[in-house]
Each structure stands twice: as structure tokens, then as C-alpha cells.
């Protein structure tokens, strides 16, 4: 499919832009050697480390080495985790904790959390949005409206803190955080899912309202279709396009939200890794995490586009522009 090929091309270019941005901008934060060894490190140790890491090479050479590594699935070696302190030649296996491993180890947890948060939010939001659209201006509509707006207005990490205090500390129903069995995911998913819940419910509601006002709904009624079929088949499928768009959008935002929520809950996901990398100035991990997130986002966008074509026959993969 040429469209998919072109899309993939764009994505690759965007990734390269992100890679370059992250690589060069990342170098503005200072000498990675000092970052690793601390302010009181001796210059010998620093120099040794720079040699170990190849930081004394020209920047462009480092860049090409980095990009070259990326192509082979090598995101470099963490500054913080593991043992970059030792000269590489001392390791039989080349040494270093590969960032790729760190990222891949954290990715499933984030996806798990995101899937639970988004899945729950989506299911609830669709029901809420449809209900509100079916009874506009009723108390249901008002309730859905205020609830959904409330859940987009809340600061996620604050909600997380409040949830911990309430449900874990005072009521003791759920764990305060950490990663483990299914009930560990509930509180973080609640904190993380609030925003998508609100956004999707809002969009569903207004899209459904719009669709229900369209002539084809009147026509469907006129031919004697039962109302539930009109809502669930006719209107919902057409309302699906904005809902899918916003869901894709929210999935992207979810990753950002995860940064804070994972930190609050001690959830070992990519967001947590990212914050740690930020705090530790662990540049390779930071780069790796950002790239992982960017890749994720690009994949999500592609999925959203594919879903479009299912929902809207006017859009075909070969013709879609923008």
C-alpha cells in the first residue's frame, strides 16, 4: 500500500528528527562523565570515564555511532544503571547495561497500565457519552457533563496522591503503589484514566448529539428501526471517527500522564524510568525512553489511521491526505 509506505516514511523522518534533537540537545546538559561520577569526582576518574564511553570523539562521530547503533536496535549503554564505570575492554561481552533492555523491560508495564486505564476509561466513557446524548439536557446529561469535565480538570498526580491517602492509607482497601497483582493497577489506572475518561466522554457526547441530529437518523427512524439500533449501529459508527481521534490523542497524552502517575505510585514503567533518567541525567536512558515513547506514539497514530478507514469508507488508505 503506497499510502502506508509513505506514512512509514514520514514516521521514519520524524523519528530521525526526534533522535537528532534528543541527541544534540541532550549534549547541552553537560558532561556526562560528571553526571555519572558526581561533582567531587577526580579529573582522572572523569577522563577515564570519558575514554570508556567514547566521549572524547568528535560529536558528529558520536552521533553517527549512535544512529548506527539505533538501526541495529542498540540504544547505547546507561550512564547510571550498571557498570559503565569500567573500561569496556574489561568485559568479555562488551559491557554496559544496554538501554534497550531497560526500556523493553519497562515498556510492558506501561502498556499494561495504559491498557487498563484506557480500556476502562473508554468503556465507561462510551456509555456515559451515549447516555448523555440520548437524554440531552436531562439530569443524566448534566451529571455526565460535570463528571467528565471534572475528570479532565484534575491534576493527575494530585489525584494519585489523594487516592493513595484515601483508599490505601485511610481505608486500606488497595495497595499504595508498586507493581504486582491485579489490584496494584487499580489506583494508578484510576488516576491515569481520569483524563481520557473525561475527554472521550465529552467527545462521544457531542459527536453523538451531532450524529443524532443528522438527517440519516431521521431517515432510519422513518423506516421503523428500533431506537437502540439507531444509537448503537447508525450513530455510534459515525460518531466513532472523532472518538477514535480523541482516543488516539489521549493514548499519546496517557504516556505523558504516566510519567507523573508512575512516579507517584512507584509503578515500574517507562515513565518512571524517564523521570529517574531525568533526575540522574542518564542521557542514554532518557534518549531511549523518549525514542520508545515516540515510536509508541507513531504506532498509535498509524493504528488510528487504520481505524479511520474502517469507520469512514470515504477515507481509503491510498487516498488519505493529512
Amino acid at each position, binding site marked *: 500500500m503506497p499510502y502506508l509506505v509513505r506514512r512509514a516514511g514520514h514516521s521514519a523522518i520524524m523519528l530521525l528528527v526526534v533522535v537528532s534533537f534528543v541527541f544534540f540537545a541532550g549534549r547541552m546538559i553537560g558532561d556526562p562523565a560528571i553526571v555519572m561520577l558526581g561533582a567531587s569526582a577526580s579529573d582522572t576518574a572523569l577522563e577515564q570515564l570519558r575514554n570508556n564511553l567514547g566521549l572524547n570523539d568528535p560529536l558528529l562521530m558520536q552521533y553517527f555511532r549512535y544512529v548506527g547503533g539505533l538501526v541495529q536496535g542498540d540504544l547505547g549503554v546507561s550512564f547510571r544503571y550498571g557498570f559503565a564505570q569500567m573500561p569496556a575492554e574489561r568485559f568479555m561481552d562488551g559491557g554496559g547495561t544496554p538501554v534497550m533492555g531497560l526500556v523493553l523491560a519497562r515498556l510492558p508495564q506501561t502498556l499494561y497500565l495504559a491498557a487498563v486505564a484506557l480500556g476502562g476509561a473508554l468503556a465507561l466513557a462510551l456509555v456515559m457519552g451515549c447516555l448523555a446524548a440520548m437524554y440531552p439536557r436531562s439530569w443524566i446529561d448534566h451529571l455526565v457533563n460535570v463528571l467528565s469535565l471534572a475528570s479532565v480538570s484534575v491534576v493527575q498526580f494530585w489525584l494519585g496522591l489523594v487516592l493513595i491517602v484515601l483508599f490505601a492509607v485511610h481505608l486500606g482497601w488497595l495497595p499504595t503503589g508498586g507493581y504486582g497483582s491485579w489490584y496494584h493497577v487499580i489506583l494508578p489506572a484510576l488516576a491515569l484514566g481520569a483524563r481520557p475518561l473525561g475527554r472521550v466522554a465529552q467527545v462521544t457526547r457531542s459527536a453523538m448529539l451531532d450524529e443524532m441530529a*443528522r*438527517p*440519516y437518523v*431521521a*431517515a*432510519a*427512524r*422513518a*423506516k*421503523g*428501526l*428500533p*431506537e437502540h*439500533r439507531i444509537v448503537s*449501529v*447508525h450513530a455510534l*459508527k*459515525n460518531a*466513532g471517527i472523532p472518538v477514535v481521534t480523541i482516543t488516539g490523542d489521549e493514548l499519546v497524552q496517557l504516556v505523558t500522564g504516566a510519567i507523573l502517575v508512575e512516579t507517584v505510585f512507584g509503578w515500574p514503567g517507562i515513565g518512571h524510568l524517564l523521570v529517574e533518567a531525568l533526575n540522574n541525567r542518564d542521557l542514554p536512558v532518557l534518549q531511549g525512553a523518549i525514542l520508545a515513547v515516540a515510536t509508541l506514539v507513531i504506532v498509535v497514530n498509524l493504528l488510528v489511521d487504520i481505524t479511520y478507514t474502517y*469507520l*469512514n*469508507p*470515504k477515507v481509503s488508505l491510498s487516498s488519505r491526505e493529512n
Partner: protein
Amino acid sequence: MNAMTEARTRVTGDRVDVSAAPIMSVEGLSVGFDTPHGPVQAVDNVSWSIRKGETLGIIGESGSGKSVGLETIMGLITSPPARISGQVLLDGQDILSMPQRQRRQLRGDRMAMIFQDALAALNPSLTIGTQISEVYRIRRGASRQAALDKAVELMDQVKIPSARSRLKAYPHEFSGGMCQRVMIAMALAMDPEILIADEPTTALDVTVQRQIMDLLQEVRRERGMSLILVTHDLGVVAECADRAVVMYSGRMAETATMRDLFRTPSHPYTRALLQAMPRVDARLERLQAIPGTPPTLSHIPSGCAFRPRCTFAQPRCAEEKPELRMLAAEHSAACHFAEAIREETSHD
């Protein structure tokens, strides 16, 4: 000259039993809405009836309430939010007082509706086949395949070429005329007795309009359906309808057989409308324009709604709302001076 032409275009008026009881009659139907500017009366005390096999034209400009009334009959406008009063009798039963569930059974089965903008009235994300067959499948409990076969049959009836291969097509792949044919096929799926066509050809070109009107007449005749044709185009009504109702600002101005309506228009509005139309057969020095503009529903003048634009208006018209009065058999008009005007025109 060849098959493309027909000697007679007019296919109405034949075989309608004038003495037969109407299959549907509307009595004193009023529909009102609330708007930000206060309540409005979109349909005000409208009564008419239609017999089996008959074509009834409903003529009116935008905002005259011609569509609102029919959407209320179809149950597409409900109370609330609308305020509805009056009766719509189908086989002697008032359908307005029926519970929703029962009314839904009537739709499609007893009466069906087609809309002005067919493309908008078709669901853009479902295939033509699904849309034509779904109601048959759900209401008649037919199997998927049987329903699709039915859809093909219907599409053949409305002369959609290579029907079977188009089952999988989506509405946007069809032209305007084709979409209208699909709409008609959808409406016919349950074999209704009354077909309401709400400006079915307004959005179409002249040549396609002709095709669709012919098709409507053909299916009406074949099935012995009654057809309610809503339009603002006097020409379309003149060619197709047996009788017509002229609406102005939510009220009935005049109702008559086609011949009476055009020969002896007895309401000043009908008269003025006929005179204002440019003619294809002659170029006039000036058109007889009706002054002013139709009132908005929120500001209907007191008394007779047409009064401010009427050349016959008298002080009485501002105070007294004229009632619809019988002038002759099948001819009524709502004007204080209807008889005088009828007299005047028939002498002409």
C-alpha cells in the same frame, strides 16, 4: 419518437375513488416549539386527508410548516420537546396518542418517508445493501441472505442498474439521483401504504428530477400507494398531484383539487404565488412580485398571517384569524374574502 419519450406525463387522477374513505386524516394538528425567543407555532390547526392511491401535494415556502407537520405524523417530532395537539387518524385510530413502541411499528410498515437531501439521509458508513435490507431483516426477521435478496429486488424496482454488485457500495459512491433511488427503495422495503416524499427532487437537476418523479408515480401506481408530496415547486405539484394543500406560515391557506387550485385560486397567497412565477413560455415585462417576505415563526402577524403582504387586506384581517371555509367540493380557503376572489378569478 422512441422509448425515451412518453406521450403523457400526467399519470395522476386516474382510478382514485373520490368517494372512498380516506386512509389517513389529519385533524386540527398543531405543533409548537420553544425557542430562545419564546414559543413558536410551527404548525397551526392543520386538517387534511388522503385516500388510497391518491397523490396529495403540500405546497409551501420555507418556514411554512409543511415538513414539520409530516415529521410529526411520522413520529420524528415528539412531545417533548415539541408541543403537539390534534389527531392523526390512521384507519380511524389516533396515532399521536399511541405509545412510542406501537408508533414505531407503523413506520416503514404503514407509512414511509423519503427526504430532500438523499445523500445526507443515508448513513455514510454503512453499505447500501445493509441500509436497504436492515429494516426488513429486523422487522420481518428475515435471514441476512433473504434480506439482501430483497434489497436487490427493491433496487431493481427503483431501476438501479446492476443492483447486486452495488450492495457493497457506500452512499458517497452514488450520484444524487441514485441516492434518491436508494432512499425510495429503503422506503418501499416494508411495502408501506403511504409514502411521504419531503421535497424529493429539490436538490436534483431538471432532467434527473423528471426521472425521480416518474419513478415515484410508477411505484405509487404499481403498489396502489398513497403519496404525499411536499414541495415548494408548483410545477411539480401541478404535474403529479390530485389535490394540494397550500401552507403559509404554519397554517393552511387553501386546499383544492389541482384543477381548482390553478383555475380558481381563492386565497390571495395562492393567487399571488401563481402570478409571481417566471414563465418558461414567455418573457414578461415585469413579474408580479409579492411584496415583503414570509414572516418568521416567532413573529407571525396577528389575524391573517398573509395580511401584511396582501393586496386585499382590510382592517378586519389584522384582528380576525380567517378560518378555513369550504368554497366548493374539495375546495376550501382561509381568507375572509375567499368567495369574492374565487368569483373574480373564475370570471377571468
